[in-house]
């Protein structure tokens, strides 16, 4: 597929046409959201909901921040995401290091126990976990939003794969040099596996930022809504105001879109981990 270097021009043009058509189909929903976000709602409906903006109001984005309290939601999301990513990086790195470089009784068994948590998505444990959070009085709080996500077996698995690529001799050499395990982890293991760590960080960021079910369950006050939960208000607002909700949706996706364009390699590597051999 990738080898057709010498193609006739008409064939190339045809491919560009196909690719462009596909791109249009994929981007169309976003385009329509954009049109609705900047159109003056009443005028847009009166104009028969055309596929182009009507009376564009560019301040829809800034008003989404002021009216919809999007700023506060961004803050909550940012804190939650930062804490989760930092915590997952730490806990996963430590556990992966233990499973790779240290010998202790029941190591294999414990590894399988860790991996078993991958079979328990938050949707399954939702009811008792919400109960736990409620009994701790952590509803509508940062601890409640982040607690179940401070560790993840996925990260342990991914980083262990990375650590296993480090030759055992490096650990021996490091011990002769007088460094302990934590120094080896910091000085050698993490720098050597930096691409894997980066991929995991990006994936952790993506899933933390995009969470919906859990924050929806432990947040009952608008103040503690993440951006994702905030988007639900679009369904409750009147037709006169819902353009702000659409603007908000675009803004919420923006950080990830930027990340996607800047860190495409890491994202792809993280997403395809385990999916493609070699």
């Amino acid at each position, binding site marked *: 597929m990738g080898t057709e270097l010498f193609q006739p021009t008409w064939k190339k043009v045809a491919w560009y046409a196909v690719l462009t058509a596909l791109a249009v189909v994929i981007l169309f929903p976003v385009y329509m959201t954009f049109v609705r976000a900047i159109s003056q709602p009443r005028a847009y409906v009166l104009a028969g909901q055309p596929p182009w903006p009507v009376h564009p109001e560019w301040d829809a984005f800034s008003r989404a921040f002021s009216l919809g309290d999007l700023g506060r939601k961004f803050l909550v999301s940012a804190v939650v995401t930062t804490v989760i990513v930092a915590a997952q990086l730490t806990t996963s790195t430590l556990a992966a290091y233990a499973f790779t470089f240290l010998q202790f009784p029941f190591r294999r068994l414990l590894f399988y126990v860790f991996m078993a948590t991958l079979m328990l998505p938050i949707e399954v444990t939702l009811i008792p976990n919400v109960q736990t959070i409620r009994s701790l009085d952590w509803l509508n709080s940062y601890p409640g939003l982040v607690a179940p996500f401070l560790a993840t077996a996925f990260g342990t698995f991914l980083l262990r794969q990375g650590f296993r690529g480090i030759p055992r001799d*490096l650990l021996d050499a490091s*011990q*002769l040099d*007088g*460094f302990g395990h934590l120094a080896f982890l910091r000085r050698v293991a993490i720098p050597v596996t930096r691409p894997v760590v980066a991929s995991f960080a990006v994936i952790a960021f993506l899933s933390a930022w995009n969470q919906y079910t859990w924050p929806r369950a432990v947040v009952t006050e608008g103040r503690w809504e993440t951006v994702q939960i905030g988007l639900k208000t679009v369904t409750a607002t009147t037709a006169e105001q819902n353009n702000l909700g659409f603007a908000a949706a675009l803004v919420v996706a923006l950080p990830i879109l930027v990340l996607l364009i800047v860190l495409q390699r890491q994202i792809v590597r993280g997403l395809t981990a385990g999916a493609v051999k070699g």
Partner: protein
Amino acid sequence: MSEVAFDGVTKRFGEVTAVDQLTLDIADGEFMVLLGPSGCGKTTALRMIAGLETVTEGTLRIGDRVVNDVEAKDRDIAMVFQSYALYPHMTVARNIESPLVARRFHVDADAPPRKLTAAERSERVDQAARSLGLTDLMGRKPAALSGGQRQRVALARAIVARPSAFLMDEPLSNLDAKLRAQTRIELVELHERLATTFVYVTHDQVEAMTMADRIAVLNEGRLQQVGPPQAVYERPHNLFVARFIGSPPMNTVPGTVVRTDTGVAVQLGGQRIDLDPVAHEPLADGTEVVIGVRPEHLAVDPDGQVKAQVRAVEWLGHERLVVCDLAEHHITVRQSSGAEPVAPGDVLALTADPAHVHLFDPNTTERLN
């Protein structure tokens, strides 16, 4: 500078005994080579000196200290790994500096050991790099170096801490043949310059013969023989050492001692080899033995007692090896390439140099003469 002493040291991994009752004294400043086939326990022995493996039984001393429970970093040794174990993300300079960062050193007389200052570290690193010709490569990472350069960085990292003993685990096995020969000479020179104990592990007898002050031959976890290269070559203590050292290996053929009025001989199938009567006094008539003769101690001689049929001739340029059938065994004769040509099928009369005939007990495999 330190001696290293194994006293009845055993290492077991679960059911497997990797090193069995090893007793070996390595003198201060000695170049000791631990030689043996893979799995013989030589690397395990080395790693015990390094402190990377614990000692199951026995005592291990470095200098006058029992080090069984001393941590690797406190043993004042350096190790060159077979893989070199360079940190791939660090520059050459940082790699060489690594042993100086965390450890404490005796720098000031009569003062307790302390960490080195950055200036002291960089001075030592520069010095080590200079002595191995690495000064121009200090900013590079290992991936940007050739195999030989990486090996030098590993050496520099070992000498930078000025340890009292160097441990080397097959450090030449990743080099090509030409570089290996050159590095052998450099290692000997390094040893002379540093005048420090070297313990060197290899399965390559050429490395052992060319570099060692003494060789310790190991097999299946047990020490077979210790001695200077020449002694180990000329008087192997048992069949394993006899066959392991020397290339091509010593010819070994089972036979029976025959005592006659005229002297002592060994009967091989239908043939007979006379022995030097004085040297073989204690052997009774009818003793089963294995007779060993190195290829270079066999010669074609019209008066030779032993008849063997040529099977193949390998021409190596400066010499040739003639492989013959004798009493259902293959034996090899080493000849200069200028000797009279022979061809497969020829029957040769051979003599063995009586001063270089080795006899072994077929049951214990121990040397008899």
